[in-house]
């Protein structure tokens, strides 16, 4: 993972309200990978996503494609990191198409009714990639949870950023839809994007990610290929569970099994 890294972090620390949430996190991630970020509740997963994208000020350095995060303007950062927050909040009932078009905001396309041909193509590509064209004109508030999260994903894809940060994109989705989301992110990663996904689902992480980061109490305690990063020792130590382990169709299968 360290050859030609796209995103590097050195000694990233975050203190919120006097409490250290991230302590000295260093990592180096390359383009074209789907990285799963796992850890118990309160381990600092969301905080790490925010610190990596500059949404939260942090100690230490983050570099994206060789540029220090601190030297980039808000707009430049927005072009490089597409951020998918938890919950897919949409406050006004806008048509799905306009939500997806907001993905072009960092590129200066602030008005969905006046997109350049380039921006229009990016929006249509993103909508086709996650198959939301059929409800492009419907208000997002009228869509089902699964449809709405696909629209949210399309919005993130439309940024066409080198890094996608997705915070629990599969939470509260049914199994089929969870696989659907992860497959879309996998395809996106395969197209050369660095995708970092926060998830509590060890099984999905093992199945789809090619690199896993394990956080505990703000520290990066394990990383590597799924089967290595989520070794028996890590599962016992970090999650205090044992897991059923197998291999199926040449993918690691890790199913949380019993508490310890």
């Amino acid at each position, binding site marked *: 993972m360290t050859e030609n890294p796209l995103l590097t972090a050195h000694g990233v620390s975050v203190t919120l309200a006097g409490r250290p949430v991230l302590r000295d996190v260093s990592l180096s991630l390359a383009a074209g990978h789907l990285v799963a970020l796992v850890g118990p509740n309160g381990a600092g997963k969301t905080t790490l996503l*925010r610190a990596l*994208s500059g*949404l939260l000020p942090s100690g230490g350095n983050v570099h994206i494609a060789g540029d220090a995060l601190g030297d980039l303007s*808000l*707009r430049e*950062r*927005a*072009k490089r*990191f*597409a*951020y998918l*927050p938890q919950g897919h*909040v*949409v*406050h*006004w*009932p*806008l*048509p799905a*198409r*306009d*939500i997806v078009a*907001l*993905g072009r*905001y*960092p590129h200066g396309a*602030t*008005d*969905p*009714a006046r997109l350049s041909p380039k921006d*229009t193509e990016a929006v*249509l590509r993103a909508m086709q990639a996650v198959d939301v*064209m*059929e*409800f*492009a*004109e419907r208000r997002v508030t009228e869509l089902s949870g699964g449809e709405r999260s696909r629209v949210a994903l399309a*919005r993130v894809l439309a*940024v066409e950023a080198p890094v996608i940060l997705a915070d629990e994109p599969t939470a509260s989705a049914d199994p089929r839809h969870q696989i659907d989301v992860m497959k879309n992110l996998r395809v996106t990663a395969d197209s050369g994007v660095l995708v970092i996904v926060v998830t509590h689902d060890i099984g999905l992480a093992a199945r789809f990610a090619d690199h896993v980061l394990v956080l505990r109490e703000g520290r990066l305690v394990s990383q590597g290929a799924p089967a290595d990063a989520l070794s028996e020792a890590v599962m016992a130590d970090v999650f205090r569970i044992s897991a059923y382990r197998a291999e199926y169709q040449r993918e690691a299968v890790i199913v949380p099994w019993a508490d310890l």
Partner: protein
Amino acid sequence: MSVQAVRAANDEAARRRIGVTTALAALVGLLVLISLGIGPVRLSPLSVIDALFGGGSDVSQVIVREIRLPRTILALAIGAILGLSGASLQGLLRNPLASPSLFGAPQSAAFGAVLVIALGLADVRSYALPVAAIAAAFASVFALLTIAGRNAGLLILILAGLAISSLAGAATALVMNLSSNPFVVLEIAFWLLGSLEDRSFAHVMLALPFITAGAIILFSQRNAFRALTLGEETAQSLGVDVGRLRLVVITGVALGVGGAVAVSGTIAFIGLVAPHLVRPLIGHDPARLLMPSALTGSALLLAADIAVRLIPSTSDIKVGVLTSIIGVPFFLYLIARERRALGGGVA
């Protein structure tokens, strides 16, 4: 759905918005003509146009251009800035119940003006009044920002705004309470009701620059409101400096509303009602709501100001009273309609 169908739907939505905006502008134009024609001497819209452009009798020219034009311009501009401020705050807070009074700026502006009247520094037609109102509106916004902090959440802003408007109301009451001159108290009480009667071009010249500056500032932020649809954090991730946006919007609202309150007293609920009236026509996009909300605000205040001149009564009905009488039940209706969302604690 095909690419062509998406583009066609986009074009259709754009045509609809232009149509609605044009219709609203025409309505405002018509109301301006009626407003200029209504009064002790009734003039038809045609003779009003004639008088405006230097035709007709000298008497009708004086009536239209010197007596009624300032009042009409103020109704137009104040209605517009109230509608625009309401739509902007609703966009900023992503809350359909937001309105300028939420930040306590109008109440504070009124307090500033009342203080000037009570201290006998000036009478209600002097320059000191608007200056004090604008200064107080600014002071309240600065206080709000200091209390809430730069990166405060919206809940803190709303609570701080509530506290400040309560304080301004209490301070206004105290000033009236302590005043030894019953005529001054009466004058204040009437001024607080909100009116556009007997306003001159001096009033227009004092309010208009601030209203215009506020309107330009608010309108320039329209696309950031659309990004805020996805919440503050996502808007920030899209490149919107949310902390700065909040500051800019509050400044725009303070300028516009402070200038407006200074010459008209408090005219409430236009800012709340206007965006709601246009949403069914043009959709919920907070950026597209700004211009139609401003036009609707103008139309509402012009219509209310025409109505107070038409309603037969023994004494003058103040336009601020009329907008509140109509606005408060509407506000309650909105609370009832939004009850589920509000109770659900949608952030």
